[in-house]
């Protein structure tokens, strides 16, 4: 969805003995990595939908790092451990602050534009691109959008998660 980055109205956190996972629903674009990889922890049909007791910390971190947006992030509960977290832990909370990256730097770093067909889900477009729809035109710098492929979204052309509800199978 196209929403201002870093603008979240709600958020929740979930803890186990070692880590805290943060959930920012407004940032979710329904890329669907989380529940396809680890339904035991991330189950959109359950409340609460995140249950960290469903898997081990290592696997949870691995899946949270797959989230292409800031919707899911994590940190170690023991603060000292957070200092040493490396860049490959893309969704560690300290890397999820894009305001630290200047627009110019973002432009240089990201090209070409990434187009990802998600399994039985939307197409996720990421990078510096222009979108045209309904006679409108918008430029994105280091942006990310998720476009409906199932034909069922109520927020066309964007994905609203309907593919899961209607059981869209990409075949």
């Amino acid at each position, binding site marked *: 969805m196209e929403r201002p980055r870093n603008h979240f109205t709600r958020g929740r956190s979930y803890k186990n003995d070692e880590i805290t996972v943060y959930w920012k629903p407004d940032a979710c674009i329904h890329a669907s990595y989380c529940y396809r990889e680890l339904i035991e922890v991330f189950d959109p049909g359950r409340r609460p939908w995140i249950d960290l007791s469903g898997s081990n910390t290592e696997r949870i971190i691995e899946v949270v790092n797959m989230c292409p947006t800031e919707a899911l992030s994590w940190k170690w509960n023991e603060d000292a451990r957070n200092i040493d977290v490396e860049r490959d832990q893309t969704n560690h909370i300290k890397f999820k602050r894009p305001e630290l990256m200047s627009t110019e730097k973002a432009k240089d770093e990201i090209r070409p*534009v990434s*187009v990802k067909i998600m399994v039985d889900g939307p197409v996720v477009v990421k*990078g*510096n691109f*222009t*979108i045209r729809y309904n006679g409108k035109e918008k*430029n994105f*710098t280091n942006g990310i959008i998720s*476009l409906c492929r199932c034909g069922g979204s109520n927020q066309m052309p964007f994905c609203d998660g309907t593919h899961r509800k209607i059981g869209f199978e990409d075949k």
Partner: protein
Amino acid sequence: MPMERNELDENTGTSAIVEIIDNGPIKISGEIMFWDLKRDITDSPSEIYLCRCGKSSNKPYCDSSHKMRL
């Protein structure tokens, strides 16, 4: 209208154009890295047309099935 290369590179730093065609597919043109996670395909096409009606029998690409909808 296909985008000219220089139009892509100027001004905004835009590398690609995503065009939602009314009652039709998603057209993406420009400098693209393409991944299809289900079919394990990676490619760098200069232009693609992606199905967005859910009916194509050549997914993720458009095969004009949207025109056959009842």
